[in-house]
């Protein structure tokens, strides 16, 4: 081997390493600043509705995930621990032999309120950030906050924010008086089944989950016995894996002869 050949190869290796470092750095830069780069390159910018949808969607999703595993409440109170989740009793009795008392009779409305309250601060923050963003782009922004509403509907959750927004730049004026954020989710269907199970527990003491699987092929319904009489119902949509779980304590029979009628 000639000395010159060895030296050339070492030089090539060095060049390759430098090129590799440059490519990796570029990829990292593009990955980090992709949205801004895309916006600059395409000249597109999000309209206010898209901005709010992007800004708040994840918070709504997080709130839905949290309360779905906790019986419909963000901060559940009367709970049982199951799979590291504190799950709220939606129907409960302290006594033996008796059917439970429904604790959340208007479950759907309760969940809508819970989601609304959980995202409320974030919604305000998103609108403020959007205002600031447009102001930086030279717009004159008038923003007036309004009421917020969350609706569980079949296959979707619609969050409506009645905020009025006016964007002015030169002669151009854009007015918005309502913003809708839609999350594709089947919580409505799961909550409807949960309501039916709760009514069954309150009326007869112990719901049969196989009935629901017979009527709703797309659902899996499970009843988990936590301790004597304490049950957790888990309703899962087979295709998406979305689930809603809640606890119930109804018509409990004590171990042995009872020394007290109350636990």
């Amino acid at each position, binding site marked *: 081997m000639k000395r010159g050949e060895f030296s050339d190869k070492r030089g090539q290796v060095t060049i390759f390493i430098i090129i590799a470092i440059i490519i990796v750095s570029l990829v990292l830069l593009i990955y980090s600043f992709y949205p801004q780069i895309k916006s600059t390159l395409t000249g597109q910018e999000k309209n206010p509705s898209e901005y709010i949808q992007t800004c708040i969607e994840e918070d709504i999703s997080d709130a839905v995930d949290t309360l779905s595993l906790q019986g419909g409440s963000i901060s559940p109170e009367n709970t049982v621990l199951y799979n590291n989740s504190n799950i709220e009793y939606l129907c409960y009795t*302290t006594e033996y032999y008796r059917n439970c*008392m429904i604790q959340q009779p208007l479950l759907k*409305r309760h969940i809508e309120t819970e989601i609304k309250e959980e995202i409320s601060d974030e919604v305000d923050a998103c609108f403020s950030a959007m205002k600031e963003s447009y102001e930086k782009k030279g717009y004159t922004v008038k923003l007036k906050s309004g009421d917020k509403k969350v609706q569980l509907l079949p296959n979707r959750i619609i969050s409506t924010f009645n905020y009025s927004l006016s964007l002015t730049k030169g002669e151009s004026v854009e007015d918005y008086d309502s913003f809708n954020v839609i999350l594709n989710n089947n919580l409505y269907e799961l909550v409807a089944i949960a309501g039916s199970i709760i009514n069954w527990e309150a009326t007869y003491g112990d719901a049969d989950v196989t009935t629901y*699987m017979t009527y709703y092929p797309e659902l*899996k319904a*499970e009843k988990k016995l936590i301790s004597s009489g304490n049950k957790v119902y888990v309703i899962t949509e087979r295709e998406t894996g979305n689930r809603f779980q809640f606890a119930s304590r109804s018509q409990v*029979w*004590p171990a*042995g002869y009872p020394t*007290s009628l109350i636990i």
Partner: protein
Amino acid sequence: MERGKTLILSIVVLLVLTGVASATVCCEKTTGGAWCQNAESESDCATGINPVTGAEYRTVETLCDLTGSDFCKLGTCIDDEEGACSSTAYLICTAAKGTWKDAAEADVEQCQLGCCLIGSQASFITETRCLNVMSILYPNVNIEYKSSINNELVCLASANLEDEGACVYTSESIVTCAFETKEECQTRAKNSAYSDVSFHKDYLCTAEDLKTNCAKTKETACDDSYNVRFVDSCGNFANIYDSSVDDSYWTTVQSPDCSDGEGNKDSATCGDCDYISGSMCKETETGDTVDYGNYICNDLDCNSYTGSYNGSDTGYATGTDYPRHGETWCASDSLTSDKDAPGATYYRLACYNGEVTPEACDSTRQKVCSEAIIDETSDFREANCVTNIWQDCTFQNTSEDCLDTSLRDCVWLDKTEYNGYYFTENGLKNETSSTYEGMCVPLYKPGFSSTDDSTTDNCGYSSSICYVKMEKGLTDKAWECLNEWSNNNCSCIDDADGNYDGGVTWAKSLNPICTQLGDCGVKNNSNNFEGYYTDYSDLIILTNRSGDENATA
């Protein structure tokens, strides 16, 4: 139902007999956070301000059922927006912003169900739900409510099945087609983007006479009823998949004529699935074979399950004997032959969508699993967790009462097989003069809580006292039992060879009775660990002639 009524009466009697503590106050909210609950004392009730009412949490010295209609009285809570009703207390309902009625649900007008006709569908729901909710959910559909129809089956049968067929139209100079309802087609006709719109009832878009650009394909897809359907080149559903059909199957709406076993499970030729029979449309996976398309009536039976299954001779599911979709059966987690061993739990297992899910009945066997074959031909099983009514078994003195399955779950033990023993209020006795003929014990031996005194209390029914007259002279070191004394029970303190053993042999002889009552006596637990005697020191208690304990003579 009859058994239920008697059972409640029996429980009340039992509770009186056992003198249990009961609720004395009704808490608006308990310290644990539950609303409207009975409690033993005020200390169980929450204090502070109710954030909803702004008033202090209340405690009333009576049962919640007896409180007034401004507190925890049970009534019907109505969701005015959703038209849903549920039975709950006034305070809970009003806190949730519901409308509360002091009446049972069946007596509340707003909760009465009627027939809601939503387009071509029918649903048996309340009027509010029909007119308010359904109009939001289905804004472009005609909705009609018929309160006169108060039977769900009649309601479902009265659904206005709308005409369906091929809606032919011209769009961008192309004659194309959509398979839809007549109403949808009429709506399309009003759209200026389409021209020459015509509806052809019961025709498929692929009918040659219609001369559209929609052609038959070999593609399939799942429809809303989980059947496999052919799809035409325009993306319209055609008839249910049947690989044996000719071109005429692509002309008009037809029912499939194919059949390839129960529910057409995993059929390569037929897409007429049946969820109840155990099949449902699903995209094909590796190993699935279909003549056309990528969808199949997936077999929902639990054929890969190998666990406990009573439908198999071996007690476990095999490649040929496995649970069918919708089947439920019983199992126990006991590793011994005794399904009622301490720690054992009965389970109800269910097979749905190819998956077996367990449901524990009760960790102390207050509920046990009951199974029956509901279809002898197919050996199809159905199981349920049912209440184990063992509580009053030991109070039954005749085999007739003991074995009355409408009232209790007990088994009769003839006293001849158990040394003449029978239960009394003071424990086991075996006096020959007694008219008792045996013992009534639980059929499913219950478990007792390890965290309280229930084991001692419940096993106490099989305790027994054997009085033995002993003699010791002034200079003697040991007590002596003399058999020559009439009715003396020296056998209670002697072993089989007549040697003094402190009552151990006698106590062990009663173990077979003791173990019948539940988690009592010495027996293997559910993990098959052997039980053992811990201490014999308290078997012998010295008394005086009057039977007083701790006597020295």
